[in-house]
């Protein structure tokens, strides 16, 4: 198949970027989207042009590195799918495809389609953990956790930290990312002791990292490759309100 790509090219963080048109010819529909870009890049290199930079690593949908907005949708048109797991068979021959980076103030562009997502790491630093030092744990089976609770916690913990939620949100809000971690730990007995401190610190860090606010569009859930539910945002809001009231007391 033949495609026309419009790709965001930006040399570095300080220079302005623009969309550049490329033709991708003889593309095999069984290729993944990133393999298609590999082919385009190989051809660019051979022509002596600068290849398109994009983040990727595991290419099996779990590391969370890949981060392309395709035709206006983070990770492209398929639900519950990272770009690396998106295959060209979902596109039509001759289609024009617009490829852009995650767009958010909190995720500055480093080059082309590569953005910096350290803001997420800083949010985790502020409380996304259970403060247990190595060696101090009791026997694992002394903590009983109902299967339903464990399953629900796992649903939240499945977040791969890719940032598609931020990219998809009309407000570039990071609520789903933060809610997933807050809820995962708040659901588990191990996370109870630090529950209130955690949600307050994580939400405040998020607010300081230039993310927008949640106005409940639920685009995050639709874009999330792990299909994490916005219910966790409600849970986080609950935890946050509770913790803020307790804090004032």
């Amino acid at each position, binding site marked *: 198949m033949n495609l026309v790509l419009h790709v965001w090219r930006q040399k570095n963080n300080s220079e302005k970027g623009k969309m550049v048109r490329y033709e991708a010819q003889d593309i095999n529909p*069984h290729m993944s989207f990133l393999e298609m870009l590999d082919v385009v890049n190989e051809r660019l290199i051979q022509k002596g042009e600068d290849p398109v930079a994009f983040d990727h690593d595991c290419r099996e949908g779990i590391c969370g590195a890949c981060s392309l907005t395709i035709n206006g949708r983070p990770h492209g048109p398929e639900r519950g799918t990272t770009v690396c797991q998106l295959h060209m068979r979902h596109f039509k021959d001759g289609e024009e495809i617009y490829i852009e980076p995650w767009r958010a103030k909190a995720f500055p562009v480093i080059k082309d389609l590569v953005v910096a997502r350290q803001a997420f790491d800083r949010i985790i630093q502020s409380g996304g953990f259970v403060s247990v030092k190595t060696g101090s744990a009791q026997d694992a089976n002394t903590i009983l956790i109902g299967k339903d609770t464990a399953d629900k916690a796992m649903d939240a913990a499945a977040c791969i930290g890719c940032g598609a939620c931020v990219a998809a949100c009309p407000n570039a809000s990071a609520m789903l990312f933060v809610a997933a971690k807050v809820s995962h730990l708040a659901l588990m007995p191990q996370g109870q002791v630090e529950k209130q401190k955690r949600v307050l610190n994580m939400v405040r860090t998020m607010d300081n990292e230039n993310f927008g606010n949640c106005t409940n569009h639920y685009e995050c859930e639709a874009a999330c490759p792990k299909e994490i539910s916005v219910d966790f945002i409600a849970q986080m809001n609950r935890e946050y309100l509770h913790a803020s009231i307790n804090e004032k007391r």
Partner: protein
Amino acid sequence: MKLDARIPAGPLAEKWDKRRFDAKLVNPANKRKYKIIVVGTGLAGASAAATLAEQGFAVESFCYQDSPRRAHSIAAQGGINAAKNYPNDGDSVQRLFYDTVKGGDFRSREANVYRLAQISSSIIDQCVAQGVPFAREYAGYLDNRSFGGAQVSRTFYARGQTGQQLLLGAYQALERQIGLGTVKMFPRTEMLDLVLVDGAAKGITVRDMVTGQISSYAGDAVVLATGGYGNVFYLSTNAKGCNATAIWRAYKKGAGFANPCYTQIHPTCIPVSGDYQSKLTLMSESLRNDGRVWASKLKNDKRPPEAIPEAERDYFLERKYPSYGNLAPRDISSRAAKEACDDGRGAGEAGLGVYLDFADAIKRLGEKTIREKYGNLFHMYAKITGEDPYKSPMRIYPAVHYTMGGLWVDYDLMSTVPGLFVLGEANFSDHGANRLGASALMQGLADGYFILPATIADYLARLKPGAVKTDHAEFRKAETQTGDLVKKMLSINGKRTVDDFHRELGKIMWNDCGMARSEASLKHALQKIPEIRAEFWKNVKVAGANEELNQSLEKAGRVADFLEFGELLVRDALERRESCGGHFRVEYQTEEGEARRDDENFCHSAVWEYQGEGKTPVRHQEPLIYENVHLAARSYK
């Protein structure tokens, strides 16, 4: 090269206690004066960095990804072993130890493996305390599943994302320390050289992957947890960025490289679909708990699997290995699949695949149960292939997955270079010639959470902290050399892309040194690899400049190292004139086609010492002494 494994004396079960008791300690007040450099943030690296920081050491942590959370441990699916014996099915430390030694085809160090089995339970405790959402039974107790190479259920899991959840646990512990200021994190920073001062590891040279700046960091010890070298085969289940650069450059600075020929080919991967393919995707081995592996009994059978009647199906694992059946170890299962395909009975267009069939399991347990257990794996399979595995069987084929070889380390996990410690897949320590499923996570975390934090103090306590700074001449030298190498790659401006060279190397490695190796194929590879390497340095085209994010340049450096390392791997395979575990030499097999070990001549680890550019490295031996395990022919029948 002196290979002293420093295994503590005394009975097997008491060695680790004894080592910890004999080790020198660092006064708590002095710990912060010692700086430890940790490269890599996978299970081993992240857990080590976090734990060392908790103990009070000053840690600097480096990774090439944009966040430590993305290290490739994250992709491990199936689970983590531990000798908890929660199911009360006869498991014990002794049995986990024995299974691992046997699974490794009697090519690992007894003392190390026993320690691993001892520590396994503490790992689960630690991870549960961190909030890792392991699978639970309805009563709230931890659930276990069985895995290849074991007849007990000792594998703990978190859906099909165990590696992810364990890594996030370690990552969160690491981020906590970063927040406390005890760990300084350097993401998007690639280690390009190890710096030795007076023969001891004192720091590293790195390239900032955003600005291209080459600089150095000094420390009192260097810890490499940089993963395996599976990408030397180009196509593997590793992440695209996985590379051998850190361990290779350490090797060139004097660290012994042990058993590079031990590579594991995983039996359950999604088959290759075309030349453009950039990587292979693993389907967790846990699928073999309920899936049955088969191939047609007829050659060139192009019928769809559903049209092949039961009588014409060959459930070859169940046939050949009745007691382990579909749960035979990885090397054995992979080879059996290859045999079926070599016999012309493979599935799919290219005939490179066998079926993994869930029809029986769905009939027995219901689709809902199967969905609960393997939902995400089925989902992934459907995404990649466009086929529905609930309806028709999956097609699978072996792919390079894990590398048991790595830098040689002693019982303390220190390499032949003083002060250079190596953890996880990057070292050679525990898996011998083949690793059992769900043991990589166990080893990575054992090394990082428990072993290194207990042994490194013994080394540090003998040093004056902070004795070497980056103003030392050795750092300047390393920076200049690294910079020159980068400049050289950018200046060649030839005709072929880096990927093109990588693919060519990978094909040679897979065909000549893959699942089955012969003297002739290995000699062929030994002749071809230097040719490719020579052409690389004349004809490679690397786009862009150094002073920017340059993925083409990053790849070039890694492939250049693979082009050197591949040769060592092949040489090791050639010199090991026996078959064992993941290393199968066609000349050395039984009449039934099983691997034939040569314990008389090869019951040792081969450790390679670098001799300089263009010189043949020297092969040393560390004899493997079995005092507790009877060296038997491995049988899973």
